[in-house]
Every structure is written in structure tokens, then in C-alpha cells.
């Protein structure tokens, strides 16, 4: 499903030095598989996700999704790819302020279907995520866990084949983190969605099919005690 080949992102720093944010990462993720990437701040996790999402151009290497090189897409094609084939779960404060849970969740769907139809389609997913009673509540009145679930609903709303999750439990307590990770795993397995999850949270390891570590831009085996 997803294949990274010697993917690299280098930046030129002041003084002529080169910062290797991502340095030759190769990785394959199968449909329905959840891969967790661990790493300290500045290890290149988010840079890696941005390149997979075609939001950042790699310095070298390629990102293949179903054999297609994402890194060579035009601006319009990259937008289309994100809209239809990719789900991106980010930290919960990216929800639109003052807007209800259901309207936040249908943001991507609005590109293809009328809003009534979008509401009709998203409601079962939100029910499944435990937000059935909170559909019309504004984002700022939702708890952090609820907001994160709205984000998951938005990411899965267009039935993507690949889902990226950037610190999805970063602002949640352990109980809420478990709930969110469990839902993410369940839904992705059911739908055959490949998941790349980057996190600091040790809990995530327990829900992933594979766990890897990213250190100084390079992929390594995950050692929990490090």
C-alpha cells in the first residue's frame, strides 16, 4: 500500500551546515496495518508525515502509494490525493472554532457531496465514535477526547486507503488515549486502511502492528527502554 524508498529531507542551516531532518528512510505498510513511529522531538517524525501527505517535497527518495510516486505529483494532483486517498489525524485544536462537531467532521466530504448527504453519511461514524449525543455541540464545548474523535471521523469520512496520525493522543489522558487508539485500530482494520502513527505516547505501541523508532532522521528498531 505505502512504500517509502530512501526518503530524505535535508535543510541548509546558517553557517553552511546541513540539517538532515529525514535521512534515507525506507518503509512498507500493508493495507489494514498500523505502524507506530516513535522518536523524540526533532527526530523528523512530522517531516516524514508531511512528505507522505505530499505537503513537503523530499530532497531525495520517493513515496509510493499503490505504486504511484506521490512526491512527483503536481500541486493540484497532490491536493486531490489528500482529499480522496488520505486521512490525516492531527492534534485536536485544528477543529474550526464555533462550528458544531458534525460540521467539523464533514469538512472533507463537502468537496464531493451536498451537505445534507454529508451529514447523513458521517452520522453513523460519529455514533460509532461515541459522539451521537454531541453532534450539534460546538467544538469548544467538546472535551479533548471528543475533539480528537471528531478529527478521526473527518479523516475517515472520505474512506481513505492511507491514514496518517500525528500525535493523536498528545493532549489526552491515558484513559482517553486508550479509547482513541482502540477506535483508530478497529476502524482501520475493518476498512483495510494503512496507518502510520507518530507519537511520544508509549501506549500507542500496544495498539500498533509494528513499532519503529526514528532518531536523527533515520529509522531504527524500537527499544522501549531507550
Amino acid at each position: 500500500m505505502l512504500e517509502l524508498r530512501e526518503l530524505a529531507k535535508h535543510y541548509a542551516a546558517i553557517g553552511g551546515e546541513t540539517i538532515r531532518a529525514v535521512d534515507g528512510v525506507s518503509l512498507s505498510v500493508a493495507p489494514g496495518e498500523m505502524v507506530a513511529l516513535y522518536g523524540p522531538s526533532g527526530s523528523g517524525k512530522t517531516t516524514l508525515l508531511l512528505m507522505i501527505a505530499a505537503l513537503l517535497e523530499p530532497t531525495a527518495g520517493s513515496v509510493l502509494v499503490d505504486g504511484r510516486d506521490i512526491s512527483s505529483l503536481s500541486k493540484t494532483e497532490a491536493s486531490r490525493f489528500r482529499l480522496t486517498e488520505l486521512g490525516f489525524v492531527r492534534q485536536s485544536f485544528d477543529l474550526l472554532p464555533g462550528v458544531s462537531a458534525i460540521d467539523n467532521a464533514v469538512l472533507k466530504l463537502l468537496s464531493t457531496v451536498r451537505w445534507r448527504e454529508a451529514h447523513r453519511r458521517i452520522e453513523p461514524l460519529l455514533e460509532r465514535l461515541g459522539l451521537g449525543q454531541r453532534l450539534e455541540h460546538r467544538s469548544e464545548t467538546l472535551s479533548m477526547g471528543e475533539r480528537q474523535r471528531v478529527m478521526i471521523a473527518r479523516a475517515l469520512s472520505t474512506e481513505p486507503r492511507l491514514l496518517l496520525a500525528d500525535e493523536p493522543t498528545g493532549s489526552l489522558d491515558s484513559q482517553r488515549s486508550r479509547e482513541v487508539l482502540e477506535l483508530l485500530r478497529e476502524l482501520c482494520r475493518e476498512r483495510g486502511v494503512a496507518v502510520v502513527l507518530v507519537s511520544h505516547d508509549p501506549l500507542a505501541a500496544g495498539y500498533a502492528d509494528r513499532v519503529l523508532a526514528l532518531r536523527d532522521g533515520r529509522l531504527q528498531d524500537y527499544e522501549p527502554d531507550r
Partner: protein
Amino acid sequence: MRLSNLAHLYRVRLRARLFQEGLAVVGIAAGVALLFASQIASDSLSSSVAQLNAGIVGSAQLQLSARDAHGFPDRLLGQVRRLPGVRLAAPLLEVNANAIGPKGSESVELVGADSSLSALGGALVRRAALTPFAGLGAVVLPVPLAKTLGVREGQTLTFQTGGKVSEAALFQQLGARQIGPLIDSPVALAPLEYAQELSGVGARITRVLVAPEAGRTRAVRSELLRLAAGRLNVESSDYEVRLFAKAAAATNQSTTLFAAISALVGFLLAFNAMLLTVAQRRRLIADLRREGYSSRAVIAVLLLDAAVLGVFASAVGLALGDELSVLLFRSTPGYLASAFAVGSQRVVSWQSVSVAAVGGILAALLAVLSPLRDILSRDPLAATAPSSASGARTSALLGAGGVACLAVSVVTLLAAPRAAALGVACLLAAMLLLLPLSFAGALWLVRRLAPGVTSAVPHVAVMELRSGRGRAIAIAATGAIAMFGSVSIQGAHGDLLHGLENAAHDENAFTDIWVAPAGSYNLLTTAPFATRGVLQKIEHLQGVRAVRIYRGGLLDYGERRVWVIAPPREATPLVPASQLVQGTPATATGRLREGGWAILSEALAREHHLRVGQAFTLPSPSPSSFRVAALSTNIGWAPGAIVINASDYARAWGSEDASAFNVLLAPGVSQREGVEEIRRALGPSSGLAVQSAEARASQQRALSRQGLARLTQIATLILTAAVLAMAAAMGAMVWQRRPRLAKLKLEGFSPRELRATIILEGTLLLGVGCAAGALAGLLGQQLLDSALAQIVNYPVARSLGLGAALASLAIVTAASIAVITVPGWFAVEVPAGLALQD
């Protein structure tokens, strides 16, 4: 994205920014309203004259017209009708008159015509029969005029014209169905013979309207010129409209300037309000782009925001502007009504609606699309980056641009005052371009002074203002523009008023009492009357030392309706000394007394390429040669003035009629006593009004003030709008900052310190903006003074205007700060715990 989805997204997002959106609506609506109202005011003036002219002339293309109120013999009509190529020719008598009814009096144009005028198809006479009541001796009036005078069909009303008083019955009231928009025109219609009888001109007319056969216009014009023999005017039938356009140009230009400034203030208010939601919009842009929406889709989302805001705010603005034009700008400048038949109709053209609405929508577009850079960036994550403050290079570039603009405006003032519009535009640009530097300078100064103060207040204030620099500069710019508009326009207005008062003083300095035909149409003392009998009656009064004949009139000279002032040769002072711009009073007086010399307004002389000492032919009823004795201002009459002595006037006009008697009183007799004595001697039905020189000067001053009243009203509205705009923007900014205030509280700041911080921020922001505006306004005042004096040739008593500028600065800054202390007071009551919440 589908339109219904865009609308849905707009609707669900609106809840979160209803207050800011409301502020933006208020701002745009205020700008649109002022722009629209001032356009209606200008259009209505010009259109009322154009409508009345079209209503009379119908399909006529040419006209043969008299050069003064005496007209020409009506037997000329037969000659015109016999000219080859003339399809139709209709006689007209147009006389200025004062109509008096039971409820009041109105200045009207008494129009005498016969049935041939109906054949031209003008709206005024198309449905008003001019023959059936000819034998009855009656007039017809538009319904509103009859109502104002309090007269109904069959009742009589009085007409004062040229010192003659007559009574006439009202035959018919003309409604909107008969005369359309002309219903608000100040016109009384009568059969030609009866109008001649009412005005006492005998068998004379003032115009012949001519409709040539197709393709014969040029030939007919040549024939008419031959017939006119240089003593009558041959012009196209819209000549009156062109003359009026020239006369009203100064008023319209100044109204346009005000409208532009008010639109700018309105836009800045909207922009300030939109800045409050920029963070939200940038986040939305980032969100949409990360989720895969294309730039086009994001632009569509924002365009819908702009369209809804622009259309709604423009609609509100148009409604407000319409109301404003009825309530505030309805009055007609009286000085124009003394020379043109200006109606009270309110003309709303589609052009005015379009300009105002498009302005409103453009303002919304500019305000909403301010984060355009984020959308157009190739990097979809651009909108997530913190908005960077302008770098040192940008500041330097802006500063250099500002200095260059300032230099252009100073050069304009010193070397090319006629290019004042360019100077004002450059000055405005300079002020705005230099504002970021001024703001940075003020912050630097506070930081330099802060170490001497044992308080964190100045540090926090500077820190806060730096973090929201874009918004702070936008607020300061609002204050700067409003103060610029207020100081420059009110200053120039004051100087102009002072100059006009000087002119009014000079025009009345050579007599104690004026005796002239009564009626508000005769404000410039231009109506001729026969002196027989009356002169002797006044001369023999006990309190009278001497009576002299004053003459004056309006003369169509090129494209200008010029005011000709002809004081008696013996008058002292003979020339308006304060109004001379070239030549000395002593020389000019000597030349005028000698005869054959004229003082010309500078603009008029320039237009006819005349210099002092040069000879020219005045196109008066009996064209006469004069030499230029000196150059003057326009003596308060926008199209220009000519001063000659009364004897020369009689020669050039071929008439011994007077326009007024100048009465000099015997020693020890006061002006009040003199007025009463003359009034008693003339009796109530003389048709002449007796007025002391002091009262006439005062009336002229009031007239000047009335003519400039609209400018004062708009200036006040701009200032009020600006104070509210700044206060609203500052208030919203303070209110939105509550989480930051909570954090400061958590750090141990007391509410008192926080309030002091807010006040200091407000003072810095408004102080910098308003001071920049006031300084630029002082220079702007000089530019406007120059423009008024050089282009329109108005009498301007130039001043520095420092006192008024300081007063405006203090009032606006104090008022705005007072208003922002209210939200400031409540904002600092925010619980410190808020800082710990999400």
C-alpha cells in the same frame, strides 16, 4: 465545492465571528452610506437643473437667448420661424420672481410660453394646456410648490419681480403624473402674454427655442448668429446645464473629496474588524489546504465570505445613505439658487447606486482576502506559519516611499498648487507609508523612557503592541485618516469662510442701506428695476444724505455665468480691496472711476488669456470694450466676478435701470432708523426690500455658511465614524486579549496595572495615528487653500490652523480613549484561572 456546501460552511462558521462580522458590516455600511449620500446630493443638484431644462426645451437643439433679464422684442420670433431649415421655434419668457402665498414665499422661475412650446414635447408643458386659461390670467404650479405656498386652485398668490408686485390666480396644480420628476422644480407656468404682463417686461421674451430640420442644425445656427448680431447668445439648448455644471463644480468636487475620505474611513473600520478574524481565516485556509482542497476551492470559500459581507453591508449602507440624503443633505445651496432654477428633487441615479455598492463589495473583498498570500503560496502549510512582522527592509522601503510622497506634496504646494488633488493624494499616501515608522519610533521612545519608571506597565504595553503590530497600525491609520480629513477640510473650510466674510464686508462697505427688488431669488442683487419716482422719494427723506444707483447682473460669459458688480462711480471704497490678487487698490480704484476698466476674477482672466492692462470685449447686451484694471478672487461666486462702475454697466447693458439704490445716511442717523424711514416712505406694495448694509453682509455670510454646510456635516460625520471605528476596533482587540490578560494576572499583575497597560496602549496607538493625521492635515489644509484660491479662485484667508488642529487632536484622542476604557475595565476582570484552561 458546490455552492450549497459553500453556503453551509459559511453559515456554520458565521456563529463564531458574528461580532467581528457585525463590526465589518457597520464599517462598510458607514463608508457606503456617506459615499452614496454625497453622490445623491451632487447628482440631485445637477439633475434638477438638467431635468427642468429638458422639461422645457424638449426636442429643441438650439436657442437664441437674451443676455440679461430685459430680454428682446418678441417680433424676433417671426424672423426665426422664417429662417430656412427651422422646423419649430417656440418663444419663452423666463423671469426670476418671488411667489408669495398664505403659508410662505418661494423663489421661482416664472415661465411664460405659448402652445408652440408643447410641440417641442418637453415634459413640463406636454400635458399642461397653455391656451385655455390664457384669458383668465392665471398660473399653474407643481403640487409641492402650491402646498408650500398654501394656495389652491382659484386662490390668488402674489408675485414680486423686478420691483413690481402683481397678483395671479392659481389655475391648476401639476402632479407627478403630468410632469414626472419636474414636480420638485421651482417653476410657475403661465401663458406668454400673461407672464409678460405679470413681469412688466412688455412684448419681450428671453429665449427662442429652435428645433431645426434634420441635418440643418449647422446652417440654422449660422442664420441665428446672423440674426443675433452679437447682441444675443446662440447656443445649444443644454447651455443652462453646462453653465450650472461649471458653477456647481467646486461644491461637487469638495463633496467628492469628502466622500472619498469617508469611504476610506469606512473601509479601514471594516478592515480593522476583519483583522480580528484573520487568525481564524488563516487557520481555516491551512485546514482546508491540508485536507486537500485546492487554492481555487479555498478562494471560493473566502469569496463567498466577501460577497455576503459586501452585498449585505452595501445594502445596509445604501439604505442608510438614502435616509442620510433625505435628512441631512437635502438643503439646496442658496447661492446657486439665486442664479439657476435648482429644484428640491432627490435624484438617485443607477451610477450612484453602482459606485457605492461596488465600493462596498470591493472593500469587503480587500478585507476578506487579506490572507491571500497564504492561499497563493505554493506551500500549503504557509498559513500555519506565524504571520511575520515586516522586516527592516520593508520598513525602510515604506519609509522611503513615504518621504518621496511627502516631497511630492510639498513641491506641489510650493510650485504647482493647481495640482492640489495630486498633492493631497501623495500626502495621504505619505502619511500612511510613514505610519509604521512613526509607530516604531513611538515604541522605541517608550522603551528608552521605561527604565526610568518602576513599573512593568510600559514594557508590557510595548510588548503587546509589537505582537499585534499589523492590527495596531490599521487602528492608528483609521485615526490618522479621520484626523487628516477633519483638520485639512475643516481648516480649509474655516479659511474659506473667513475669506467669504471679508468679501461680504467689502461688498457692503460703500453704502449704509440697500434698496432692491424683494425676493430670495435676488440674493446677489442682480434684478433690474425702473427707478422712476422711487429715487426722488428716497432722496427727499430727512435722514438721507445721498442716493446712488448700483447696478449688477449675471452674464453668461463663455461657459460661466459671471456675477457683474457695478457700484456707483462715486462709491468709497469702490473696489473690494481684500479681494485683489493682482494690482493695487489705489490704481484699480482710479481706473474704475475713470471708466472703461474692469476688475476680473483671476480664473476668468486666465480662461480668456487676459492680463492686467489688456483690452477685451464684454459680451453684454450692448457689447463694450474694457481694459483689465486688476485681478481679483471670485468674490465668493464660484463661476467668477467682474467689477465695473455703474455708468459703464448702463452703457454695456443699454439700460438705465438700477439693480439697487445705495443710500448714504445723514450724520447721526443709525442704519436701523434709516431703514425704517425708507420703508415707511416706500409703503408695503413697492416690491422693493430695504436692508441695512450690516444686515446684507450678515445675510451673505449666512449664505456662505449654508453653501458650505454640507461639508461641515460630512466632516463631523467622518470624525464621529472614525472615533467609533477606532473605539470599536480597540475595544474588540482588548476583549479578544482576555486570555493573555488572564496569563498576566496569573503572573501577579494587578487589575490596576492591567488597566494602566490598556490605557497606555490606547494612548500610544491613537496618539501616534491622530498626531500623524493632524500634522498631515495641516499641510493638507494649505494644499486645499491653494486649490480653492488658484483653481476656483475663491477668496481664502489663509491661516496655519494650528489651534483648531490641536483642539481636534485632543478631542478625538480623549474621546476614543474614554470609549476604550469601558471594554478595558471589564476585560481585566477576567479570572486568572482562564489562563490554565484550554
